[in-house]
């Protein structure tokens, strides 16, 4: 625990204090940016996109040459002529057309048939399994959180990980690293009145002062209070120099990507970002909802990578999607699909070896109506940890998993 809280905060008088901390921090941030230019893994980061609710993989990457596809999806299939073809057998849902340029530039890897042993069809438990990388036990922290703990990153960096949204996802919960979750810059702050703000420094940063009682949790709470306060004040200043090079779509998902781009381009040394899009839980009238969300995903990715490219940072950021499960192969009576198992994942970015990895799971050899997975999700995580973030994956994943070639 100590490492999370080791640095003592000077309780300097209100405003001068912020500026002093800020300028020290800005130097550290510039130093991190410099390291990135040398080409090591130091400047690289990962964006995890949660396609929350269970995205239907079968209508995302479509096996249009298989007649069984049109049999199992009589009313919610995508017509052959609309599909954005990737090869003779597979194509993208047309609402993903914005990904095609990135795909043609070899910057999109599509991993098919990914899931975990003994699939669970509960949203909550399956989401937890994807975020903890622990299919067979309950652990409180996430796999990316464990990575941040193990990666030997600078102890005083408040932004090792950043989650977009109101609540910290389990993915980024860590034993030793405190990750901020940010919906928007306005919400990420103590919203006291002006005279309260003037005192907040002393109230929240009392680490140098002793209390009349002892508590095993006091250092932890004091440290989180400090970090939350400092991060919420520093972040707007640190990213003030960033200007988006493209216009992002007005969706919350794309606005989140815009904030991620700001943090990437400010060089804060952030290694893992999280943003979610959903809900993909399409039990009823699937096409309408899934089409809307897939368009938001592809439109966001297109803007994000164009913006990163304009800032010269598109080779330093890869994006990985996941969803808690794919959906049932056969559509249901409500023009929707029920919870399923295996699904494809997207890996996007300049460091990616584009293409299609693994076969599409059979539409006839099923497991209680669900696709059979062939690639363990932890192999995907291991690949990103080993080949992109350049750390050993076994301590993070609790065991060794083979890596893939997409990076």
């Amino acid at each position, binding site marked *: *625990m100590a490492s999370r809280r080791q640095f003592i905060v000077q*309780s300097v008088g209100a405003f001068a204090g912020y500026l002093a901390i800020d300028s020290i921090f800005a130097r550290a941030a510039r130093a991190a940016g410099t390291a990135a230019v040398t080409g090591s893994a130091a400047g690289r980061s990962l964006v995890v996109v949660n396609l929350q609710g269970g995205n239907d993989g079968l209508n995302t990457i479509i096996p249009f040459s298989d007649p069984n596809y049109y049999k199992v999806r009589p009313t919610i299939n995508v017509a052959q002529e609309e599909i954005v073809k990737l090869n003779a057998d597979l194509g993208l849902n047309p609402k993903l057309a914005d990904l095609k340029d990135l795909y043609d530039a070899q910057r999109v890897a599509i991993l098919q048939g990914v899931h975990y042993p003994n699939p669970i069809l*509960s*949203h*909550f438990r399956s989401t*937890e399994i994807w975020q903890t990388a622990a299919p067979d*036990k*309950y*652990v*409180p*922290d996430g796999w990316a959180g464990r990575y941040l703990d193990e990666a030997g990153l600078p102890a005083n960096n408040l932004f090792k990980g950043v*989650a977009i949204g*109101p*609540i*910290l996802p*389990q993915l980024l*919960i860590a*034993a030793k690293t*405190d*990750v*901020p*979750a*940010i*919906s928007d810059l306005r*919400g990420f702050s*103590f*919203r*006291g*009145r*002006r*005279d*309260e*703000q*003037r*005192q*907040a420094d*002393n*109230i*929240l940063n*009392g680490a*140098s*002062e*002793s*209390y*009349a*009682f*002892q*508590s*095993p*949790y*006091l250092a*932890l*709470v*004091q440290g*989180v*209070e400090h*970090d*939350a306060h400092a*991060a*919420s004040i520093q972040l707007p200043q640190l990213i003030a120099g960033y200007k988006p090079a493209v216009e992002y779509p007005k969706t919350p998902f794309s606005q989140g990507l815009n904030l991620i781009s700001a943090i990437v381009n400010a060089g804060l040394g952030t290694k893992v970002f999280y943003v979610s899009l959903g809900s993909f839980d399409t039990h009823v009238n699937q096409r309408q909802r899934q089409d809307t969300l897939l368009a938001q995903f592809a439109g966001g990715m297109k803007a994000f990578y164009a913006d990163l490219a304009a800032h010269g940072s598109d080779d330093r950021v890869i994006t990985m999607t996941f969803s808690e499960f794919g959906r049932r192969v056969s559509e249901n009576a409500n023009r929707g699909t029920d919870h399923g198992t295996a699904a494809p994942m997207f890996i996007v970015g300049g460091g990616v070896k584009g293409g299609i990895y693994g076969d599409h799971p059979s539409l006839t050899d099923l497991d209680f109506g669900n696709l059979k997975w062939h690639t363990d999700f932890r192999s995907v995580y291991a690949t990103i940890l080993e080949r992109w973030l350049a750390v050993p994956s076994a301590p993070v994943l609790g065991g060794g998993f083979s890596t893939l070639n997409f990076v």
Partner: protein
Amino acid sequence: MSAVQAATTQYRPAGSLDAATALLPYTGPWTPKLAAHLLRRAGFGGSPTEIDNAAAAGMNAAVDALINFSHDSMPQAPDADLSYGRLTTPEQKRQANIAMTMWFLNRVLLSPNPLLERMTYFWSNHFTSSVDGGVTPQMLVNQYALFRRNALGNFSDLTHQVSQDPAMLFYLNGAQNNKRHPNENYARELMELFTLGVGNYTEDDVRESARSFTGWTVNRQDYTAQFVPRLHDDGQKTFLGQTGNFNGDDIVDILLRQPVAAQFVAHKFLRHFVYDDPEPELVAAAADILRSSGYNVRVLMNGLLRSNVFYSPRAYRALIKSPLELAVGSMKLVGATEFTPRLAGGIVGMGQIPMRPPNVAGWPGGAQWMNQSTELARLNFANQLVYATPVANVQATAASMAPAMATSPPSGPPAMPAMSTPMEWIGGANTADPGAIAERIIWIALQDDANESQRSSILSFLQTDGVGNLVTLNGENLDEKVRGAMSLAMATAPYQLA
């Protein structure tokens, strides 16, 4: 080392345990601080008046008042349609969930029996269920009634009844567990999370236990539990070294005869009520009480709440308040008398959806409550609460704010049916004396547990304006200044500790 182990080995209090006297009755001085400590642990925090009363009563009378439940005229169920049917729309389900949550929160806030509510919360996080996997709000309300009836009852009775509870039968797939297709989910969690802990049974024990529980299912017409003999496997089973034609009740009895069961349950009580990572000697002593009393929870709680270790400096503020504890305690502090959906949404922002634990293992608690986002949510919950303005028609306001349950932080002061005034908070303190007001606020919010820099900041706040100019307290600014001072006291680290 798994992270679960990491989380439970780092927060044992400093200093050493005197195991010989730990569970003997506490005979030291009875102080208002200890009275406040008792009310934080055996309830959800005391109002300033409740703390004064417990302090005046003495330890034994204060514990008696908590343990001996008085008649309770509060609603046993939400005043809303909780039935789910084939025609229930998503919006009706959402409204039913909100009605259930508001009923629960307001019970916890207003109950004359804080320990009854605290035990219900404890059991709901031990025998975990949730509105998921077919569990309806009505089934969950019924399960909470089961916890309430057995709040300080017998752990063995409760475990037997939970095993036949409709919500549990749905939540852990007991309802799908039958002779032809055994489902091991409940059998496994009963051992791993409810009675023994991992490592104290084999996979064969899981399978044999699942076979024994077959036959219990839920009647889909009236959502009651029922035993269907033709679905029950009545063959021989070998479970934890014993062989026989066992049923579910036999399994529970065999489980609770395992020495490790009493230790497992005692550990859970100590972590919840005393401190994290209790020493093995302390666990063994508490387990002895459970065993020798035949798993009588009242006997255990009677002992714990009067014990040396409970009132020792090592236990004082040694736990982190859950969002529920923080919210309810804060409401009591400012004299607020009704949760609104928006305030409930504030609890969600702090990382806890009431009545909806993240998984069957329950809320892990402790360090898991603390991150930058949940911490800011705590500060902003308190800040909004102190500026709440009583309004006449809160129902209409509440209805319009129901979407706030979706966690996005709303802006502006929340509406509140009723709340004490800042003048009532400061009691008789001289309204022209910022020092006296600061002392009073620091006492009622923190029982003096602020440090020097926090004290001087709260005083300085009362003496200066937003740009640092000196101000005098007067009729113009007094109300807002007292509210702000309260918000600052509630923002301190000690306020986050139970």
